[in-house]
């Protein structure tokens, strides 16, 4: 940082923020690593934007955008060189905060007794770089599920409480995005440590950055940045506002919880069941799906056993297995369980929607089933059944 560089004068800058160029993002990654964080962010790999540990900001997907459609995902080159102008990829932060496979405890037979030991491996301190506003909300949803009830998942809590969240507001929604409908984006909601808005125009490639926590402010103070100029702020805000008008999908304007509770016997479930392969892809890519199963294993001595917890899916036939067979044997009932939980009963159980409108389930469904289209069809069905419409039809 040069001697005359404009540096942090904390209060006014806290709301107006700072502006920095690509070198600021490079410095950010370096500062985070120096502070002991495991930095995880997007990078272009194997034809997709994936989340991976970053050693430097060079690994960010500068110049890569994505093309999304139901059942379709393509990388596309961008000529503005933007790093964060790509909507949700196949993974979410769930892979790090609520990993697919976790050892919970182990049990040992010792002198005729049983000793059970909780797994206490210290989690890495993550810094998540490039969190979308919808995914920020998804993390809040998982927080409520895993730490907001009578019991806290201590493993999740350990990984989560140490994590630093650096949000990048959305200026480039995908054709499958509908965060506006769900009230989760494209502007960032509360809960971040730092938030950036990326601008790449004739005035240059720059990032408007603000802090949302004390640690965020401390890190911001170490970056080569200048106070935000009004033009950059305006352009950044306009980009986010425009994104809100460019969502590819939208949910029907209805009380979704009521819609789900009132359509459990709708014929549409048979229709979607005819297309759904019950592969469970939608649950694996969803940033809020939290269901798990347990696996108990022993080693060769037979005196040491371990308890593992694995992601599970309500599309799996064994998911609802009771003595005598599965409760949800048909694909109709399994798709219905998934969608009515996401959009309806999640409110009853955890006080919010289980869907944040990221569109991943639409993109990664091999047959292109679209949750917004299914909700719209259910909504149409209820409308066609109301007496008013009936009499209009004569």
């Amino acid at each position: 940082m040069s001697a005359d560089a404009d540096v942090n004068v904390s209060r006014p800058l806290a709301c107006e923020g700072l502006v920095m160029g690509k070198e600021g993002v490079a410095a950010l990654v370096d500062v985070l690593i120096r502070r002991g964080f495991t930095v995880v962010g997007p990078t272009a790999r194997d034809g997709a934007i994936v989340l991976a540990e970053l050693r430097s900001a060079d690994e960010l997907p500068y110049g890569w955008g994505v093309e999304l459609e139901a059942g379709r995902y393509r990388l596309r080159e961008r000529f503005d060189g933007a790093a964060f102008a790509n909507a949700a990829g196949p993974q979410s932060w769930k892979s790090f905060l609520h990993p697919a496979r976790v050892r919970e405890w182990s049990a040992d037979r010792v002198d005729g007794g049983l000793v059970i030991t909780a797994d206490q491996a210290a989690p890495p301190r993550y810094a998540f770089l490039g969190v979308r506003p919808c995914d920020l909300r998804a993390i809040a949803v998982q927080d409520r599920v895993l730490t907001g009830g009578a019991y806290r998942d201590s493993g999740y809590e350990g990984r989560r409480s140490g994590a630093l969240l650096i949000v990048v507001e959305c200026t480039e929604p995908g054709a499958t995005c509908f965060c506006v409908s769900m009230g989760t984006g494209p502007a960032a909601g509360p809960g971040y440590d730092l938030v950036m808005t990326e601008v790449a125009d004739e005035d240059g490639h720059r990032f408007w950055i603000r802090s949302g926590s004390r640690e965020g402010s401390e890190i911001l103070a170490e970056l080569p940045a200048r106070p935000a100029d009004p033009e950059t702020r305006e352009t950044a805000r306009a980009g986010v506002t425009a994104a809100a008008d460019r969502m590819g999908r939208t949910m029907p304007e209805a009380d979704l919880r009521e819609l789900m509770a009132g359509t459990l016997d709708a014929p549409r479930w048979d229709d979607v069941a005819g297309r759904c392969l019950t592969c469970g892809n939608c649950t694996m890519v969803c940033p809020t799906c939290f269901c798990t199963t347990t696996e108990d294993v022993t080693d060769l001595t037979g005196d040491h056993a371990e308890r593992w917890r694995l992601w599970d899916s309500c599309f799996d036939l064994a998911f609802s297995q009771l003595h005598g067979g599965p409760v949800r044997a048909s694909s109709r009932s399994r798709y219905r369980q998934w969608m009515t939980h996401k959009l309806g009963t999640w409110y009853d159980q955890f006080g919010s929607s289980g869907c944040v409108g990221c569109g991943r389930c639409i993109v990664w469904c091999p047959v292109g089933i679209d949750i917004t289209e299914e909700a719209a069809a259910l909504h149409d069905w209820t409308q066609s059944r109301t007496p008013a419409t009936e009499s209009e039809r004569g």
Partner: protein
Amino acid sequence: MTTVPPPLPYRVAGTSAETADTRSIELVPAGRALPPFAPGQFAMIYAFGVGEVPVSASALRGRHGGLVHTVRAVGAVSAALCRLRPGDNVGLSGPYGTGWDLEAAVGHDVLIVAGGIGLAPLRPVVHAVLDRQAAYGPLAVLVGARTPADLVYRDEIASWSGRVRVEVTVDRPAPGWRGAVGVVTALLDRLDLRPDRTCALVCGPEVMMRHTARALVSRGVVPQRVQVSLERTMHCATGHCGHCQLGPLLLCRDGPVVGYDRVAHLLLVREL
């Protein structure tokens, strides 16, 4: 709020065969003890290296002062639990779930309707009512079993006679069976039910609970005073694994015991 604890080691203090495939096992803490269980609550019992399953407490204080569970061997874990011998160890956690609302039954006639092993989570209710008999009206227990040989707690049931009205029916009689044959709801006809004073507690297969609850309501028992204990797959018992959902309910948290008024409409939806 508590952090999900790993199971605590418990030692088998005694076992007894109830039927050919069902055993009661009494567990005492090998070290630290779990908080006390209430009737209708359940434990997760871990069979070393095999797995962990939910099992209701079938008596809160057994002969050795421990917690009693009655397990029917239907698969790997339950069979491992039925093979346990005194001195063996298991992992135990709990108490989990919402049990029977016995306060709601105070001052009422108490009607227990059980199908098969469904009598296990209701047995602590019988004990609690007999302990405080003055607080409740008459107690009646209706039991349905597949065959006479599948009837659990046979000796204990006999010991209740005089203080509890017990009626047993079987699906398939065996030679020498002189009792009733048929579904448990038919036994309701034998009772002089006082619907406005009755609190009913029902546990058994879901169809049986649905028919019983419906029959009781059609006779005038208010749905809020019919409690049912529902079953779904459970892997965590702490609201984190998602397996035990019944529509809006997480049965490990909001159940297993629920008022029929809350679930009557859900029980009508196939494959929910």
